[in-house]
């Protein structure tokens, strides 16, 4: 049983193509409970696509994905049940603009988890407090800074009690001075034991927080290891090249 191995997500020979374009070309990846995996790679290498396959925002062309005991790629699987337990944070926040911060966090709790209004509100306030927005709960998204919006988005995902969190360049759309607040929240989350797959360009963060770093290029994993191994002693030419550009 996957659970006994402590593996939350298992990806086997995953392929994804958009028409003639092969974006993922056989990706294998296991993520253990409590593990923080950071994915690096040049633009267009398929990082986002990989994450989006995990919660089926993209439908894999071939291969298998397991989430705990469930085969995600099984057509009979209830997709919404998986998504409910797999939190995702987007580069562009995607808050619901017509709802206040609090109601952004409450909506899916009410609709999907069928929590009562009181429950949902209590949990929303709790998570908004954890991401440092206790004083912004009634603000509309447009009245929040990008960093604050992203933290609301994180709270919104956490309120669903996910077993794993996917971060797709959560800080890339932010002004440099706002990046830190968001990274602090993510760091605290990692330290609290959350299983996380993080696509990011923040090397410092990756070094601090990641248990494992993965370098992807052209739809495949080129190299992986601890952050120290990957950053300080890359084995592949393409990894070196990429790190040379980014640092």
């Amino acid at each position: 049983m996957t659970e006994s191995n402590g593996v939350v997500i298992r990806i086997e020979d995953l392929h994804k193509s958009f028409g003639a374009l092969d974006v993922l070309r056989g990706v294998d990846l296991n993520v253990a409970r409590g593990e923080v995996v950071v994915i690096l790679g040049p633009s267009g290498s398929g990082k986002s696509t990989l994450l989006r396959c995990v919660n089926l925002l993209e439908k894999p062309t071939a291969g298998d994905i397991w989430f705990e005991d469930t085969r995600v790629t099984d057509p009979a699987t209830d997709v919404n049940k998986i998504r409910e337990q797999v939190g995702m944070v987007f580069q562009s926040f995607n808050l619901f603009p017509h709802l206040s911060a609090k109601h952004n966090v409450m909506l899916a709790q009410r609709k999907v988890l069928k929590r009562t209004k009181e429950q949902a509100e209590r949990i929303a306030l709790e998570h908004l407090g954890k991401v440092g927005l206790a004083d912004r709960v009634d603000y509309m998204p447009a009245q929040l800074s990008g960093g604050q919006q992203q933290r609301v988005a994180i709270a919104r995902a956490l309120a669903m009690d996910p077993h794993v969190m996917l971060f797709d360049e959560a800080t890339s759309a932010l002004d440099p001075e706002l990046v830190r607040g968001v990274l602090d929240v993510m760091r605290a989350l990692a330290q609290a034991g959350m299983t996380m797959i993080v696509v990011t360009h923040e090397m410092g963060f990756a070094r601090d927080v990641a248990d494992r770093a993965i370098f992807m290029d052209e739809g495949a994993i080129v190299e992986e290891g601890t952050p120290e191994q990957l950053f300080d002693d890359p084995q592949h030419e393409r990894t070196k090249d990429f790190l040379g550009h980014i640092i």
Partner: protein
Amino acid sequence: MTMRTQGALVRLVRSTLLFAMVLALLLPMIAASPAEALTVDSVTARSNQIGGNEVMGGRPVRVTWIGTVGPSESIESVVINLPDGVSPLLGDDASRRSEKLGGQPVSQDDQGSDQYSRVDVQVTSGSNRIEEDVTWVIDNERATVTFGKPVETGHKIQISVVNLVFPDADASYALTGSYTDDTGATRTFDSRAMQPIKVVARPPVEKLTDWLSDQPWVQQWNSFPVCQTFFKPQTAVSSVPALFVGWLRSLGLVLLGFPLAIPIGLAFSFLRMSKLAVLRFIASIYVNVIRGTPLFLQIYIIIFGLPMLGVNVDNYLLGIFVLAFNSSAYLAEIFRAGIQSIHKGQFEASASLGMNGAQTMFSVIIPQTVRRIIPTATSEFILLYKDTSLLAAVGVMELMMFSKSIVATSIDMTPYVVAAGYYLLVTLPLTKIIAAFEKKLAAAEGHTDEPPGKKKKRARRGSSGDSTAEDSHQENALQAAASAVGARGTGHAAGGEGS
């Protein structure tokens, strides 16, 4: 037998004699009654305001008296008494004051001014008009008509007293008078047996109109042709209440037609986004044919066409349906553009939280769509409201039609200007509301810098990548929505201004 015959004869003679005696006694009395000499045929009053046998009080009217000269008589003069309270215009009215006529009686010598009372006399024999040399005089009590040569038996005399003013109250009047024959004998006549002249009080609007007509500044104002033609105060005050019903009917057309258009439009917007090509095709034909042809033409086709098919529905009802179907095509495009303007990130965020399609639609997509399309949909409402006027061309009673019918009698264009006011009464506030709403919407979706209560510098800047790209995506889609609607007319207020 003979005896009995005789007795019967005697009885017959006796009763005949008695009858003759009674007749002889009665005859002079009958002959002396005025009806025998001059029969009053009719008494009527006329004015422009009210049809039938009624006239309005407080307004100059024409009273016509017609009588026929009886056997072996000839009439030299006729006097018509003015009933109590009825006054002739003798030049003593404040606004019509004349140097010459300060309440003095008027006569045929004073003719030439329409403003004073006068008498028109006509004498006819059968269908022939008899030339008469008539003199007349009107004072506060009576109108007296004297004929140059006496009017003979069987001739008909028609006397019209023009510009008499009855008291401004509901009442009826019977004319009395007298006549003199060629022997100098004067007899009275009484028309009480005839149908009386019915007078009704002036409605307040008419009073106001008359009052205005008497004001020097109004006369001054009306002396300018532009003012007189487009802004005549008298027509304006009478048009406002007269057009009110027309305004309500126009409002009714759009208030019934537009809500009907919403579900139809929504249905066609869904069809246009359908996965089935056939449905998309049908919907696009519907939308493009309606948007590609004039509403005026559609009105003609439906309103004149349906009766030819034997479908006889009230014009007003048909008008509502034509407006509804026309508007539904524009709304379909507004809805479609609105839904498509929602960034796909909204669908993905909802999905990533485990929400199903219906939950996403009703809790996330539709609330955002509604807010976004309200300005464009309100503009469409305004356009439709104005377009109700086109229905006047096929005789649907609405504001434009009401105005046309008033203009037909008022001569000047003021009713149209008043109608414009009635249209603006709806369109101006709505335009203002749209503008306010768009501002609020822009604020809610991230175009202002102010959090509630506090002033705070927004941290997000142009350089911040994806979120800005999202905003411009949404705005582009809304621009598309606006231009989709803009096809109806260039005077389109909403949507396109979101920069």
